[in-house]
């Protein structure tokens, strides 16, 4: 867009979490969130953007994720895809190594802020934790209320009998 060869000072975006904390991030990082991207495009980003659905704790983690992904993507162009992939995989794995409550908060935040790769990462992590579990284990881990009646439960277990050892 700009034909100037001088590096432009990066535009800063100001965010405020639900519990009143302020965060200043570079525009490139902010654009990882499609929600914020639309706000910037609509001209609502000149003052502070309030994020009533995201706490400071979660917001700072989200910013950490986006910053890292942007940095690796920019730096990795020269190194090639494979190096970028390996580095990000290691970071992502560590990033989602959090308690269940935080993980779900991250899912909600990624959904609200519309950050697809963060949403996919967090949702896949939850999905992966459901592998090879029994029905009771799953209900316990995720505190799921069993909304089947006794008859319904019996019927459905019969239908999927092949899945039970």
């Amino acid at each position, binding site marked *: 867009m700009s034909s100037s060869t001088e590096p432009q000072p990066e535009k800063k975006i100001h965010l405020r979490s639900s519990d009143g904390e302020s965060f200043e991030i570079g525009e490139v990082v902010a654009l990882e969130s499609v929600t914020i991207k639309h706000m910037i495009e609509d001209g609502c980003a000149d003052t502070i953007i309030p994020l009533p659905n995201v706490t400071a704790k979660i917001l700072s983690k989200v910013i950490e994720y986006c910053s890292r992904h942007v940095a690796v993507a920019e730096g990795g162009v020269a190194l090639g895809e494979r190096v970028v992939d390996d580095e990000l995989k290691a970071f992502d794995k560590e990033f989602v190594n959090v308690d269940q409550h935080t993980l779900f908060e991250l*899912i909600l935040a990624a959904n609200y802020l519309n950050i697809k790769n963060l949403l996919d990462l967090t949702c896949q992590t939850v999905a992966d934790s459901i592998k090879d579990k029994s029905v009771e284990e799953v*209900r316990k881990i995720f505190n799921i209320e069993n909304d089947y009646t006794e008859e319904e439960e019996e019927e459905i277990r019969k239908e999927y009998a092949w899945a039970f050892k």
Partner: protein
Amino acid sequence: MESLPDALVHYILSKINNAKDLAICNCVSQRWKEAMPYLNRLFFPRNVFDNLSHGKTPDEIVSQIISSTINLEELVVYCPFSSIGLASWLCCAGHSLKHLELRMDSIVSYQASTETPSKLELLRSACNLESLKLWGVVMVQSPRWDIFHKLTNLEIVGASLRDHTLSEALRACPNLIQLVLLGCEGLMYVSVENPYLEQCKLDFFGAGDCFLTLKSSKLKSLEVQGCGVIRLPETQHLKSLSISNNAGQISMVELGKLVALEKLSMRGVQWSWDAISGMLQMASEVKHLYMKVEFTGDTGNLQPFPEIDFVDFFNSHPKLETLEIHGAMFAALCQKNSLKNVDSKFSIPSLEKVVITVRSPLNAEQKMSTLESLLNYTRSLKKMTIKILQMKSSHSSADDFFEYVCRLRFMNRNIVCIE
């Protein structure tokens, strides 16, 4: 998790693809069951129906699960199934499927010829496929596929093919970008012309005498095992090439100029000298060269390599960064006159890593001279590894050789290492 909105629960559950886990999820709660239509990917492992005692057949259970999805994009079935089952699945999900992977097991169970239409023929209903992977296929009759316009990736592992059936299958994939044929037997003359093909990996079983002609001009990477004659007329974009033959001789390799080739690997028991010298000549831009060819000569007549001029070899491959050579090639560079053109103006500019495998202790002095030349005339050599393989230690020259090599290492501590 209960506090998440339905859409997110559905999104999370749509990322589970193992059929057994999905069955469990269906039983967890009503709300979770409602996520089932949103599944995009399904995977049925080999033994998922081993516990089936009575009631429905595996085909029917798979059908039931597939029919409850709205937009199934990926289906992987490793458990046994019949063509009737496959027909009903593709009736349901054929249009939405982008990736399909099936363990056909046709070689083991010989149902292939008795079922009509065959499982292969049924695949035509998955008209929007982007990727198809088949295990254990018997394709001795025409698969009768329509055109898979969107198919960019085709992989067949463990197959019995025929020249004409493979041709037809490839003709049905005009937009193919990646082709993998592993452990395939029954082929004699293979011709590949898919215009957009970029990656190709071929591994043919048999006597190692297959003829291969590959005319895809956009090809970037080719790996081929088991052919005796290879014709690659269009090689302008080829970056990586690996040719090997475990079973037979490589008698001819016809190539265009390898202007983009960075990685070259040549392996086999015996290559004709024309093929070897032709390849080396064409690969003038190569950066990484791996050679493990044991003999040259004509069929049945195993010969060692003729003498190769050291200076000529390195001058014709100025961009060489890594070099890994085995016995015969190394020996060729250690002949009486190999080093005759080495002078003070000679230089090997880019070579950083050398791995040499030596089997024979004979001609030790000459071998040392060559190794020393490598050390003295390279500008950026970082590591030289000398692998000593199966050397008969009773031979007295073996001791001399070891002595020489250890001295070399001692004098070049940082660079030389012995394995």
